[in-house]
């Protein structure tokens, strides 16, 4: 059953903004069910790396493959159609739409009916059922008619992940899912991430080390856009150099 090729593979991926090497020569492999963390101080190029993987920014050099297919030059929506999803560091939901509408948009994103013009959305039972299931799973169903801007920050962070899951992705990129959450809420987020389908491959950027070490098994440490270290989370946790960077002695 297990797939042999990695679901996501980066080979010598680089991004330059003028003279600035935001991401330099990064290699990474994410397999079926893999849980991979990306660690690094602010400005290390973590979010830029996500933008390269998702096609928001073009790479300067290197190769990005999804399920063995070279997608380096593909637009974002085509990569999503391959089975990739992403959440954002700065919550980017549709604030003036209701919770249900947010999820409906996410659910229909990969369905052909998204271009249907002469049939009411309300008549698509399957789309509604899928949205109801997603919202019920996180206990949000009673919030469905709320505008998203009226939700608490914690609820919005959770909805971010729900939107990411709506397309049944095989590869999920999470950009600081617990950003701005209180300690208790972060723990809930970690539990929630651990409760997701075991086959799902997750690449996660996270500053909250408790969340990170609780979720991932493999970590890549970025520093000034370069890979400083890659290895199992225990090894990274005890690495002298990593501790120095994080404690500001580097």
């Amino acid at each position, binding site marked *: 059953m297990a797939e042999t090729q990695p679901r996501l593979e980066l080979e010598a991926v680089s991004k330059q903004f003028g003279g600035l090497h935001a991401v330099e020569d990064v290699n990474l492999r994410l397999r079926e069910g893999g849980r991979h963390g990306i660690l690094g101080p602010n400005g290390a190029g973590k979010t830029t790396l996500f933008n390269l993987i*998702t096609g*928001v920014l073009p790479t300067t050099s290197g190769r990005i493959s999804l399920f063995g297919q070279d997608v380096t030059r593909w*637009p*974002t*929506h085509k990569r*999503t*159609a391959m089975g990739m*999803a*992403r959440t*954002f560091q700065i919550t*980017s*939901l*549709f*604030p*003036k*739409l209701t919770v249900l*509408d947010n999820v*409906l*948009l*996410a659910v*229909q*994103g*990969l369905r052909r*009916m*998204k*271009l*249907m*013009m*002469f*049939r*009411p*959305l*309300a008549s*698509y039972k399957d*789309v509604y059922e899928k949205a109801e299931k997603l919202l019920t799973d996180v206990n949000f169903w*009673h*919030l469905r*008619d*709320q505008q998203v801007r*009226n939700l608490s920050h914690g609820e919005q962070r959770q909805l971010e992940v729900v*939107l990411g899951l*709506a*397309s049944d992705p095989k590869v999920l990129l999470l950009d600081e899912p617990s950003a701005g959450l209180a300690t208790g809420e972060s723990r809930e987020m970690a539990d929630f991430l651990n409760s997701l389908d075991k086959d799902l491959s997750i690449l996660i950027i996270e500053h909250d080390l408790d969340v990170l070490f609780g979720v991932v098994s493999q970590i890549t440490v970025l520093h000034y856009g370069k890979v400083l270290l890659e290895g199992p989370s225990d090894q990274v946790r005890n690495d002298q150099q990593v501790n120095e960077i994080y404690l500001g002695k580097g």
Partner: protein
Amino acid sequence: MSRLSSELKQVFWVIAAFGALGAVTPFFDDYTQTIITRALVFAIMAMSLDILMGYTGLRSMGHGVYFAFGAYSTAILVTKVKGVGLLTLFGAGLGLSFLVAAFLGFLAIRAVGVYFLMITLSFSMVVWGLAYRWHTVTGGDNGIAGILPPPLFGISLQNPVAFFYFTLGVFLICLGLLYLLVKSPFGKTLVGIREGEARMKMLGYNTWLHKYLAFVISGTFAGISGVLWAMLNRFIAPTDVELVTSVEALLMVALGGPATLVGPAIGAAIVMFLRYWVSTFIERWYLILGATYIITILYAREGILGKVEGLLAWRKAGREAGAAIPRVQKQPEEIRT
């Protein structure tokens, strides 16, 4: 379920309002009838712009372009081709605006915000220039006169009341189709693009395609208003298709309430009323139009209909909050607005 019934209620009120309009209009004097018909024609234009401006969030100053193609194609066909039928006129007007929008969309959709506004503004200027300078086809600033509407199934549309009912019918068909559009999955994606295009791309939408389709649909519907306008006035000149027409369409949407469809139709009625009725009393009616616009922007940024909807929702929430006090089982989340 309650959402569905409240939508049905809205549809009912809209149908009732236009039914009432249809019933009372024949009793007004000729001039008022003409103003009402003109308002309906521009309402189609404003609603079509609403798809682009209100729902998709792309402010266009180029809607006069499709109006112009609709109007001039009708004028030329009626005056040059003997016995041309309504079907041909609408076919030509719609087909032309469709083709023009399909072409201009390629140029405009890559831009957003003020750049989109400037590109579409330049389209308006080019088309006005064509109407003004291309004498052999458009008659230059003399315009084209004698655009008599052909009969509909043997019924003459040259009678103002008959033409009013015809326009009302076309308007209601457009309203129905556009309502279906905004309630469709595609319509929802337009709102999603307005609220967060980056997220839409990440969710798997080819947002360029959705915006392009909205642009073409919007332009095609605007062409209908041009066809009607030419037959209603029986005369068309470059002053009908100058930049002011596009700007007024924008005003109608902003006044009435973007992303409401019916709102822009109300906006169209207000602007036409000011232009043709108030202007008979006050020469500088633009002052009144400007003042109305400023008041709307200051006190009702969501437009007149948006404001009314907001007030109704606020009252409803207040009533439900009041009613929730004796009935404890109501969840507090449900009363937050």
